[in-house]
């Protein structure tokens, strides 16, 4: 994975991956729950098209960052539960660092504009 934003699609995919890993840090969850958690925790700012979650989940399984197992949901429905692996935990810190760098860079660009607007 590149550290610069050369490939915007890969970067966005990486962002979704990071959000999933962050959500699973709190404990195993099924797909529907992950989608809702991301929406709720972002105060409904991030409206993920829920389907796009699944390719991302499989990408993470393939990389060995999460694992899937069968379980039962809150209302006793059978569902697939995803949980973080040790490798996934490590990856989350990497993604976190990358994101902070990126967000910092955006913030540094945006702040002078705000100042100008204030003037």
């Amino acid at each position: 994975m590149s550290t610069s934003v050369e490939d915007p699609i890969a970067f966005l995919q990486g962002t979704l991956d990071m959000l999933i890993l962050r959500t699973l840090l709190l404990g195993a969850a099924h797909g529907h729950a992950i989608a809702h958690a991301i929406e709720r925790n972002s105060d409904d700012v991030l409206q993920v098209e829920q389907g796009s979650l699944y390719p991302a989940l499989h990408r993470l399984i393939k990389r060995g960052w999460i694992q899937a197992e069968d379980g039962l949901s809150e209302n006793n429905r059978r569902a697939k539960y995803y949980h973080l692996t040790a490798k996934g935990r490590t990856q989350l810190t990497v993604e976190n660092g990358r994101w902070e760098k990126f967000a910092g860079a955006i913030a540094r660009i945006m702040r002078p504009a705000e100042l100008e607007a204030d003037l």
Partner: protein
Amino acid sequence: MRWNRRMEEELARDIADHIAMETEENVARGMSPAEARYAALRKFGNVARVKEETRSVWVWNWLDTCYADVRHALRRIRRSPGTAALAVLSLALAFAPNVTVFSVMDRLFLTPLPVKAPREIVQIEFQDTRPTANFQYLKVSYSDFQDFRHSLKSFSGLAYQLGRGSMVALNGRRVLVYANLVSEDYFSVLGVPILSGPGFLKNRPSLVISHGFWVREFEGRPDIVGRTLLVDGRAFTIDGVATPDFHGTDKILSPDLWIPVETLLQLQPGLRADMERRDTHDGTVWARLRPGVPPAQAAAEVASVGRELARRWPATNRYLAGYTYDELADRERGGKNVTAIGVFLLGILLAVACANVAGILLARAEERRHETAIRQALGASRARLVREWMVESAVLSSIAAALGLAGAKVLMNLLPGLLPSMVVPIHFEFSFGPRVWLYAALLVCFSALSFGLVPAWRGSRPDLLSGLRRDSAVSILRVRIPIRSLLIVMQVAAAEVLLFSAGLVLDTVSTVERFEVGFDPHRPVAMAVLLGTGEDGSPRPVDCEAVRDRLARIPGVRRVAYSRSVPLSGSGSGATFRLEMPGQEPREVMGGSAGPAFLSTLGVRVLSGRDLEAADQHAVLVNTTLARQLDPAGNAVGREIRLDGAIRQIVGVFQDTVWGTVYDRPQARAIALAPARSGGDVTFAVEVAGNPSAYLAALRSELAAAQPGSTVASSKTLWQHYRDSLFLERSATRLFYVLGLLALLLTVSGLHGITSALFARRSKEFAIRLALGAAPRQIMGTVLASGVKLAAGGLVLGLAIAFPAALIVASRQPGFSPWSVPALALSSAIVMVAAIAAAAQPARRVLRIQPGDIVRAE
């Protein structure tokens, strides 16, 4: 972990669960069940796409879609089998001759001799220093070879090789094979490994057989080594089988046996005197340089040993200078040149075929514009469409390659049948070597790329509006015709290049055929060779007079004659006489021996005096060249000359006759009477009433019955004998014409296609013009003219390429001239007639136009 059916099912269930949960939540929020499900689905997005994307996380996507593309391509091919068949056939017609000719060139010119360190190997030869010499370059006698081997220090080894026919007895059958008499260290000097067996042994008569012979005659049995083989009546032990890639060192003749000279001389001491003659220059000498010795130093030593031999044996070697010659490097260079020319010509044919297929595919791209436009509107990327086209091209090309290879295999099996009949049969084992496979693979790639790319690019270009409107006029005018026209012009040009070349070669051959050969090839004469051998295959003299009487009794036979030497028999004309004249240096003249009236039977004119008769033991015939040298006044008949030490009287002068090839210049030649009983091979010629080929079977059976145990070979008419000597020239002409006509066939189908397309494009316009009262003849003329214009353009382009190329060839090839009116006229006429015929069919369709129908259809 790999993607599998179970994962597919689990994903489907997972997604279904997800949507069910979302639906439940929506219901809990107060929606109706139907509304709730609809909202859940909307929120989830396109289920099929999600599945596809998830799948592509696991599956190597590219390969997967390629597989799909191949299936798709096959489906499209099945949907229009006619066009596909035309394309495949066009390509296969180009592939088959390409692969066949290349495999022959590969075997003859590109396969290096499988010797160790070929750069260390040179040939040693003699050069006759006299300006009047019959032959400037001479091979080496066995005695000279032994002297060279004894004296030379620059070489680590010298190998001797002499080709000859041998009779082998095989379970009651006798087979004539080509054998090489060689020095005992032949294989080790050349560095050629032996597949199985110890190789030549000193303590018993041993020989090595070729791999082809082993497979042909012994089915490749493993217990072959140590078996006894009867060769010319003597028992030898097979002590080795050569490797499959070693076909001897000759370019074309591949020996089946290698026999050590010394072993043969021990078994047949009678041969020694003949073998040790220094004036028979017929052995090939290969020499391997000692490591570190510069070639120039070795050459100097060979020259110096040659001078020493000239001093020691003045009678035979006085004018001979020894020199070395890098035969292998020379062959490699020559082979590459020939192959380059061959591949260029074959490439033209392939290019024509590719242009044809490109035209066909362009037409299909046009037909599918609507489909393509719909797919583009639905989001298919251009790369995706191009790839589909390329895959389709590759599939077509592969099918054509399979067909072409099968065709090549058939052609290669036919090839040996085209070879002229020889006394010793030639075995040619053609096979697809690695270079041939590589060539075939390159053909497929090249052709798929060349004919696939243009239509792919054109066919996939974004053209939504007119494509969806089914508007036929817009893009055709702009896109298709110029490219297809260009292709056609190039095709016609290529066909013209090939046909013009064919005409030039044919012209050269017919010039050669007008060369005076000195005998009359049209005489009704049938001939065959009788090899005098006993029941056990050992040599036995032929009683020529008895055989002659027997043949004379065949009904319809007018005259029978026999001879040891025959005009135009290629290499078998090397015999010489030593001519001694008072007050002159002794010199060699070409020699030969013929039976009574043999030359007259072949139609050789005796200009003064008479032909040989049975009692002429001390007589000799001389040809005009020798007669003029002996007596410029023209009174040679009656003179006595000294030949090989014996006094002979000249009884007749015969016209100069070519003995080796038609290109030979006349050389001084004397013909003595052949002995009535002689060993080896004797040619019998019968002059008959009527068609000589009808007598061949009788000639063969009578010869076989005349001397039981003997072998009859090479039976043919005098005309066939003459034609066989021009085998290479005629093969070249045939090859050019086949390539040219194939190219023309492809071009005609292309031209027909483009004229039809043009007609289709303008049919609306034509209909309107007809409705307004134009004469159909005028419109037919327009269609015809469009085809003919393209052909004429191609013709001019073809000549512009072929003519300068022919000039270059002519500057290197004497006897070849590009200034041939027949070649020019014939090739141009063939091309133009074919072009008009191709355009005429679509043009005639003008007559069938019903203006009302077409205008109404709009």
